[in-house]
């Protein structure tokens, strides 16, 4: 086994996984506070990428202004979605909410490329392409920076959840009724959670978009994010970080070492297999809490 290849793939995998983890962060945030899974997260990431492109190329803003503008806009969008649409679905069975998020995904996937153009768009973050050599092992700058930013954001989320606002959100996720009776504004907390997850998705969209170009395929980040969320535990933010690294490394190594044996394409399967194995062995993920149903 080529050790150099192994290390290289593992490193790239960990960094790429961290970037997927940003999308998973959004899913976990929403699940923690409102108990629903948001299958539109990939489409929201795509929309965030498109908005950044719109501000940068369409309106001519410099990058350091366009990105915060896009982030702010998406934060408002997240709150808007929660307020108008999700509010009405309180109390409905979970499958209805899941279907609703699928509907949102379709709507965004149609509206955003339709209005802004479906050709692949360029989003340049100014990261030079030259590779960085660590000994024999090559790592490219874009992944280092992208992975680094993602990891930093996830750590920031962990820190946030220990602050006052974070404690409020944890209370809401634990027991909405009790939170209400203590005086916590539950709707506000949920709305903020949606806004923050849209922000996380936007960062992911911008990072991925700068590497592959902005088009509808950004919405496909969803599947990997789901695998990470389940592996780490749907209600655990530190779990996202660890699971992201694991999923990224597994995928990378699978592509490197299993593909020649199987004949290609194992990358996508890894996420699915991880989901199935996790659900069979440890359903609530590495760090998730078991859901106890009370009669």
């Amino acid at each position, binding site marked *: 086994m080529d050790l150099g290849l192994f290390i290289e793939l593992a490193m790239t995998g960990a960094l790429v996984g961290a970037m997927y983890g940003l999308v998973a962060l959004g899913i976990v945030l929403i699940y923690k506070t409102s108990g629903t899974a948001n299958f539109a997260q990939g489409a929201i990431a795509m929309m965030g990428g498109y908005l950044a492109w719109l501000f940068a190329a369409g309106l001519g803003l410099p990058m350091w202004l366009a990105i915060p503008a896009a982030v702010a806009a998406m934060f408002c969008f997240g709150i808007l979605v929660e307020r108008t649409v999700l509010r009405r679905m309180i109390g409905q069975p979970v499958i209805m909410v899941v279907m609703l998020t699928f509907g949102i995904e*379709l709507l965004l996937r149609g509206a955003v490329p339709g209005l802004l153009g479906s050709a692949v768009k360029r989003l340049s973050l100014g990261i030079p392409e030259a590779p960085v050599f660590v000994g024999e092992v090559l790592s490219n700058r874009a992944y280092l920076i992208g992975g680094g930013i993602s990891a930093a954001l996830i750590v920031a989320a962990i820190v946030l959840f220990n602050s006052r606002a974070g404690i409020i959100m944890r209370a809401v996720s634990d027991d909405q009724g009790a939170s209400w009776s203590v005086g916590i504004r539950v709707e506000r907390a949920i709305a903020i959670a949606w806004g923050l997850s849209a922000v996380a998705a936007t960062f992911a969209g911008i990072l991925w978009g700068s590497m592959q170009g902005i088009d509808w395929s950004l919405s496909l980040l969803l599947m990997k994010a789901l695998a990470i969320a389940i592996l780490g535990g749907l209600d655990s933010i530190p779990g996202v970080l660890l699971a992201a690294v694991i999923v990224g490394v597994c995928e990378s190594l699978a592509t490197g070492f299993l593909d020649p044996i199987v004949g290609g394409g194992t990358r996508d399967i890894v996420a699915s297999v991880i989901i199935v194995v996790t659900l069979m062995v440890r359903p609530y993920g590495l760090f998730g809490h078991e859901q106890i149903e009370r009669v």
Partner: protein
Amino acid sequence: MFYRRAGIRHTDYRHERQLWPLPFDRLLVAVVVALLLAAPFVVDRLYLVAYLLPWLIWSSAALGLNLLMGGAGQIHLGYGAVMAIGAYTSVHLVRIGAPLELAMLAGGLASALIGSVFGAAALRVKSLYLAMATIAMQYIVDFAITHIPGVSGGGQASIEVPPVRFLGLPIEGDLRTYYMALAVCAVITLFMLNVGRTAFGRALAAVRERDYAAEIIGIDTFKYKLLAFWTSSFIGGVVGSVLVVCYLRSVSPDQFHLDLSIQILAMVIVGGLGSVLGSFFGAGLVLFAPIVFNNLIGFAADRSGIAISTDLRAHLPLMLYGALIIVFLVVEPLGLAKIYDNVRNYFLVWPFRTARR
């Protein structure tokens, strides 16, 4: 005035448990059946092939999924994979010479087996986790189909369906394919109409409402959930083979991706969970909305002369489709079946008014 309810007296339980006790309901059903049977001779060919036939097939699929979701309350986001297994199995069997009837049943069995295997693994968990497990199943089956050349047909990756005979008649041309799809749909509909009246159906209903309560009164929840998966997957497999033989006439992996699963899911939910009529309505709406929007937009763009960019024009049906689903779920979560119910209730006592709510 229409639904005459006076004078209907039941003298035994069998009579009381009829599917359609009111004569007007029976009349409606008879009219619909007559229309469906006469369709090839009455309706323009375009509508037969491009609208009625897919509508029948997709309704059957929605019925199968409805058994699992509306009947047993489980979530299945991988129904496309189930149909794919059935389709591929039956096409391969037909190509090596097996009769179509056997191939269809074998396709159903294969789907049921593989579907139950995944079901058994996934049924440890509930709702959301089950949904993710079924998505994982979809991707794994996708992968298996495309990467095993024996299954997918190798490089060209689409396998033509050879001419087949069903119950002795060669299935070719619009007439025969339509009637074959109609026959299969009729069988599945009859099954679904009656399943709620059997012990199996009642056990599923108990599991759906409160599974631990069902466990307490002696229903083995795991066994019934698994049976629901099994039956639903069997139906899915059979519908998959009908889809390929009657409509697509060739099978390739592109046709059975996650999009198909979400489409059938949308049909079931928009139609109304648990309702047979709802599956038909939902299938019609979800199937035809993009086509209708497409034609509408083309019509409007031509007439009014507004130059919409091609991009926007092409994406509008997708947008409207997503918006339609969202609006339906928000406005009428019980689906089209509930709307039909409301209309029926209105006419039940017409020209009098219903009691104020």
